[in-house]
């Protein structure tokens, strides 16, 4: 695991404001004609945390963000951001949010610096401060060298970084990131992740929508899974994984030849609740689904008592792809096939 999320976790545990909700959504409904883009969504984002809103294309993620940034008026339900109601107090609410959309929302014809300066002025910073803030954010997002070039000449990753910088100018209490890495290559995606992790480490509250499992795993503290405008699951990333499949114990015997014997011994012993263990001779592994810590102790104890030598063992949780599959009964997106995801996860970890 990359160190990033761990930094985030440590910080949150120390956070004195832990528990207060920066965003509260109750029964939010938005229809477009016959289409129910949002069909009664409930969710909370605690202050100083990252909530990942995970779902396939067309699940309603962008509609949710647009409602929460006052770009759309919901048909029913309530939503408050930093205590302000999206319908009744849109003007106050706009002072507290930063928005980075799916499509880079910067002016292409203006230079990076001019974009940031303009936004600073629109946020009522005095000229001098707006200039300083533009310089500072360009520096921070490694765009100083490209500061004077028009944004249309920027690469996809640079544009997205400029977009993030633009959202940060007003030091928003709540930041919406709507699919911040969609369409970016893995290297650029990592750049954006790094920036988001930095913002979170500095105390930002983030609502992040994504259709990428690794992204949610990397950045989010909690996850809300939505599909067809409805919340279908919610919890901490680990909880969600555990709820779906529980852990699997992976045992590597010192002598691969003993694999069949070990599997048979386990099956015959009939340990309480332990079933479905499986030998994978190709990889020299014995896989045992677990429901509790006691089972782990019992399995290892039994094998030790029977005199089998274990070279290595560990437990693992199912990937979010598997979680999503088991909740919705469908793959999140065709393009997120497992091999590609696995590859990228490794790259991140490296």
């Amino acid at each position: 695991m990359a160190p990033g999320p761990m930094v985030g976790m440590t910080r949150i545990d120390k956070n004195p404001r832990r528990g207060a909700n920066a965003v509260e959504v109750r029964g939010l409904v938005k229809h477009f004609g016959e289409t129910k883009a949002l069909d009664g969504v409930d969710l909370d984002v605690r202050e100083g945390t990252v909530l990942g809103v995970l779902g396939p294309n067309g699940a309603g993620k962008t509609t949710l963000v647009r409602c929460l940034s006052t770009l759309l008026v919901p048909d029913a339900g309530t939503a408050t951001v930093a205590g302000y109601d999206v319908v009744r107090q849109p003007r106050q609410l706009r002072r507290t949010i930063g928005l980075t959309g799916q499509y880079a929302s910067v002016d292409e014809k203006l230079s990076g610096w001019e974009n940031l300066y303009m936004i600073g002025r629109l946020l009522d910073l005095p000229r001098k401060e707006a200039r300083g803030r533009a310089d500072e954010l360009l520096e921070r997002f490694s765009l100083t060298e490209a500061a004077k070039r028009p944004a249309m000449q920027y690469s996809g990753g640079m544009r997205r970084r400029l977009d993030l910088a633009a959202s940060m100018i007003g030091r928003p209490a709540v930041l919406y990131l709507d699919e911040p890495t969609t369409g970016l290559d893995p290297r650029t995606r990592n750049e954006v992740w790094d920036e988001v992790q930095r913002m979170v480490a500095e105390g930002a509250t983030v609502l992040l929508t994504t259709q990428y499992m690794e992204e949610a795993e990397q950045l989010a503290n909690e996850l809300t899974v939505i599909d067809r405008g409805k919340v279908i699951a919610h919890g901490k990333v680990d909880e969600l994984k555990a709820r779906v499949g529980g852990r699997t114990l992976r045992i590597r015997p010192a002598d691969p030849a003993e694999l069949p014997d070990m599997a048979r011994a386990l099956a015959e012993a009939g340990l309480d609740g332990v079933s479905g263990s499986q030998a994978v001779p190709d990889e020299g592994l014995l896989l045992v689904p677990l429901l509790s810590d006691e089972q782990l102790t019992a399995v290892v104890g039994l094998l030790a008592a029977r005199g089998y030598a274990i070279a290595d063992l560990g437990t693992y949780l199912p990937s979010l792809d598997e979680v999503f599959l088991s909740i919705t009964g469908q793959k999140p997106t065709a393009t997120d096939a497992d091999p590609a995801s696995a590859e990228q996860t490794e790259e991140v970890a490296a």
Partner: protein
Amino acid sequence: MSSVTTTPTRTPSGAATGGGPQGPADDGRIGLRAHLRHIGALSRRYALQIKADPESMFEVVLMPIVFVLLFTFVFGGAISGSGNQDVYVNYLVPGLMAMMGLNIAMAVGTGVNDDFKKGVMDRFRAMPIARSSVLIAKIVVEIGRMLIAMAIMLGMGFALGLTLHGSVLQLLAAVGLSLVFGASLMWIFILLGLTLQTAQAVQGMAMMVLMPLQFGSSIFAPTTSMPGWLQSFTNVNPLSNLADAARHLINNEGPVAQPVMVTLAWAVGITLVTAPLAVRKFRNKT
């Protein structure tokens, strides 16, 4: 890791205070000074866009030159007798000031239509600024463009023998009236730009409105030779009134008050009806 050493840039604001640089939350209203500042920042954006794309100034520079040359030499002889083009120049150029406003206003519609398809509009609409300031800034910059076009056209006119019979003040009044009327037209085209789906549709729609208004007027030729039904149209046509007002001011002859009042009435009426509609349309656009 870098995040450990970085000074936090975010204010530790609680839920109630919000994150805006304005400090404690008020009722969210935007004061006049802030409003003007926002319009200034957004006008700068449009000005920088022009700087980045100088070709967008072609129409402003070339249109007045081409119009003055074309109409003076094509119609001038026929209307005022051959060799009397300079007489026609004094008739035509003030009238063309009305037409210039119309043509530049039309381009605003297509520009707005393009502009609003961009992601940056979402950012503006999610920011604590009055949404009308985006539209007003556009109009401010377009009035500037109109002013440049007027200056070039008058320069061209003077080169072809335009003589100022009135005072400089009267000339400025004529330019000012054209700008006021042009600005009111922009609201119509902004509304069209926000309503219609494509820039092409805006252009097509604009042409349909433009043609009869332009040529069914006193811009190019006196209306006395027109049939009665057409005359009654040209008499109420704001472009005729604007052309007559500008003409009478620059040539210091004929009634001024009446065409000026009719033109201003049109400008105010158009703005009162279309500006709120356009702002509402922009506010609710998804």
